[in-house]
């Protein structure tokens, strides 16, 4: 499901290049240490997450480079 990113992550993503027109591919680290790789971030403000992760706080967002 689509999850709105906190403003600080939007701010970070906007400092990084896009992966394609209107989107970026990112790796997320969630509270509790779980990592989700290769997540789509749209317009630097929404990410597509598995339903079971949607309510977990995002601890870090990194742009995928490969």
């Amino acid at each position, binding site marked *: 499901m689509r999850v709105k990113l906190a403003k600080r992550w*939007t701010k970070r993503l*906007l*400092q*990084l*290049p*896009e992966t*394609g*027109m*209107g*989107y970026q591919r990112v790796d997320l680290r969630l509270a509790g240490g779980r990592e989700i790789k290769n997540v*789509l971030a*749209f*317009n*630097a*403000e929404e990410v597509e997450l598995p339903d079971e992760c949607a309510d977990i706080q995002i601890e870090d967002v990194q742009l995928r480079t490969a």
Partner: protein
Amino acid sequence: MLKLNLTLQCLLLNQHESGMGYQIVEATTFDNKIKRGIAYNAELLLFEEEPRRMFRTATFAQLLNEAKISTEEIRSLQVVTNTASASPAFVLREAASSYVRKAMPAKDAPIEKTKEKEVFKRFTAYEKDNRITSDGKLLPGTYATTEEDAKKAPTGKAAVARYALPNPKPASNVWTIKPWKDTLIQYGIVEPANDQPGGGVEVIFTKGTNPGTVTGPEKIPDE
């Protein structure tokens, strides 16, 4: 116009043609410039900015005889895969107009500079595009397409397909970008991805654009 030396001829003969009897190429010069052109019969290279009217008045053999040998100018040649059309006439016209793009993603393409009055378009599903600042500039690393290529995406869904966008929502908001001359840019072709065919031209504004260069969005039909 250059007559290719034997090394470059062999190089081209080991690569595919772009059409019958010719190859669209990018030549790397010894001063590390990349120039596009058309190699005829793997032996005569005409750069895209050069006139072609001599073909009407001279034979191929005469042109070869008059051409300077490439040895001191061209270090290597690479055939460019053209996905736009199989029609030679179209390809030639496109080459002359600088519309031939590398068949590689923009991120892997060399950094170039925009020409005067070049116009670009950006399609997104969002009315408020976060990569466009309030003073009308693009942030560094933002993607777009050429104005010419954008004409091939008349709807938001067509844009999703042509630019292989992972967001299935129609990209029906279209911004117009008129960068200053010499803005840094990379040109490429969208690869198939996200269950979409791609094939459109994509550009990256490597360092973004200057204030006041982006207007819109214009709304196009979703489908």
